[in-house]
């Protein structure tokens, strides 16, 4: 059994669209991830304080425009910061510049193309685990 199988990558998935949240959760769990979900920025913030995550996948626009970047900003404060993926249906020059400056690891456009997202996510979280274990 590989280390990832013994200790599955733990993800926090944040989206206010329940259908997206449930579908992505199911897909990610099928890929072997352990997934916690939050339907708002506030819920996500509470989970970030209560648990540790290898990766955060957050929608950009939820109760407020670009509020997903607040979730990302909070996650970036951790010493071993998680991989951060932002999902958006409404990318703009302004929020994309902010995401680049913050060091967001991946930005996926909705509807999410799983063939692009899943390999990228797996590569990023595996690399994070490797760098932490070194």
């Amino acid at each position: 059994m590989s280390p990832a199988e013994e200790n599955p990558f733990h993800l926090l998935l944040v989206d206010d669209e329940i259908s997206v949240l449930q579908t992505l959760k199911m897909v990610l769990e099928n890929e072997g991830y352990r997934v916690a979900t939050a339907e708002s920025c506030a819920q996500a913030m509470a989970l970030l304080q209560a648990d540790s995550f290898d990766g955060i996948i957050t929608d950009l626009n939820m109760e407020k425009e670009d509020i997903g970047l607040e979730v990302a900003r909070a996650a970036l404060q951790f010493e071993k910061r998680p991989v951060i993926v932002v999902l958006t249906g409404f990318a703009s020059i302004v929020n994309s510049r902010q995401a680049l400056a913050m060091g967001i690891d991946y930005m996926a456009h909705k509807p999410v193309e799983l063939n692009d997202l899943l390999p990228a996510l797996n590569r990023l979280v595996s690399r994070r685990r490797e760098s932490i274990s070194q």
Partner: protein
Amino acid sequence: MTQRSAEKRALLVHSDIGILTNLQTALTREGCIAIVARDLASALLAITQHQFHFAIVGADLGEPGDGWPLAGVLRLAFPKAFVCVLDRHEPRLEGLRSAINYGVQQIYVQGRPAEEIVTSLLNDAQRAAAKPES
């Protein structure tokens, strides 16, 4: 020569020899060793022969946009390196998304004087090094 860049090695990849020469001169003045490559093949060879602390890659080498995947390869090969892309115009949405998803840390516009680009590069690299790693 500045202390911050002493003995740092940079890879410069661009199809325009004038841009390469100006950047190489500016980096050398800052105390860096600058290796130059005019195409993808030479850049890949350089990656196998040296360790790099910085890389500046033209967004368009032989084909439009082919510098982005090379920048992504550099980030994978040298996870601690500061990798930026030199683009012909102010970053647009697609460029920003490519930057995020290939792990590129900054986009500079190539019309700026080489000295300015190198100063920005060294400052941005210092800031990036201070951030927690994922």
